[in-house]
């Protein structure tokens, strides 16, 4: 990067007073000598002062007495029980608390699922030797069946024609008469 590119990358930090003294001095010297970077500085300062003046002028119209009166009336107003509950639950779900709660819950669940590896009597989620699922799904006129055996982790999938469905369809068609 050239000197100008370097300075333009850090000119905001320089104006914000976030550069080291040596870096600040280098930026200051460059901006004094370079018209392009001086223009960048002027534009950034103009944006800052304009935004500040827009907001400050509006804030100056906010009078303290009515503002304070409204804050005070909120303080004195009796709050509904559910508003307090909502505040309390928000606090409970605040990020620092959730930060440790999430890994703790994951660790507990993992521990629970792996108990049977260490304790032979423990069964979680049913017997190990039973077939876990037999299901069928219609797939374009054919059916799919799944069988999963938990101990060996074997899954069997097969496709077959559903004869009953075909018979029912044929019977319904004959009852309803000829189609146009």
């Amino acid at each position: 990067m050239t000197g100008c590119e370097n300075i333009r990358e850090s000119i905001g930090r320089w104006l914000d007073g976030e550069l080291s003294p040596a870096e600040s001095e280098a930026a200051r010297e460059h901006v004094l000598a370079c018209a392009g970077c001086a223009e960048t500085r002027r534009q950034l300062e103009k944006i800052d002062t304009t935004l500040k003046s827009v907001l400050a002028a509006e804030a100056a119209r906010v009078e303290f007495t009515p503002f304070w009166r409204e804050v005070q009336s909120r303080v004195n107003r009796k709050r509904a029980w559910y508003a307090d509950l909502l505040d309390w639950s928000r606090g409970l779900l605040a990020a620092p608390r959730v930060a440790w709660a999430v890994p703790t819950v994951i660790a507990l669940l993992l521990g629970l699922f792996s108990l049977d590896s260490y304790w032979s009597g423990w069964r979680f989620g049913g017997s190990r030797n039973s077939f876990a699922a037999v299901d069928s799904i219609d797939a374009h006129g054919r059916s799919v069946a799944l069988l999963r055996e938990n101990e060996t982790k074997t899954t069997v999938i097969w496709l077959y024609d559903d004869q009953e469905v075909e018979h029912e369809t044929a019977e319904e068609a004959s009852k309803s008469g000829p189609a146009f």
Partner: protein
Amino acid sequence: MELTDWELVQKCQAGETSAFQELVSRYHQKVFMVILGLLRHREDALEVAQETFFRAYRKINSFQGGSSFYTWIYRIAVNISIDAQRRQKRNPLDFRESMDGVLDAQNEVARDPFADVQDRELRENLVKAINDLTPEHKAVIVLRTIDGLSYKDIGEILGCSEGTVMSRLHYARKKLQDKLSAFL
């Protein structure tokens, strides 16, 4: 001698409402500016600013002085503003009318007609350009501009690192500069 913010907080924790009143008088305008910068709607900003101080009052006992009072109050203000933004999906015309009112009121005191027109254009376009930023970019630029807060303080308020503040500010300024180049 004027009491520090922390001394006022301690008095407030001991039950002195007048100490909290003093804190509100010190910060209500700046808090309002931050919220107006984020929400762009005067009435909403006023409502959120009052709610900010109300919540601060309710939670004052949990404030232990680990950070400064102003970073704490700005954090509450930014969080409520972001919540309010999510809840209230206003018609863009409402914002436009509200900010037009703000800009009109400011132009009444301008003196030089040419500078007045130039300033008005810049202000209008600045408000639009700020609104096109994401809430995160809007928050860093508003916090930095209003109070000249350090990157560390801004990071504390927004819950992000100084490096993130730095890159967001750089990006936001670049965007504003690009959009406003014709008016600067």
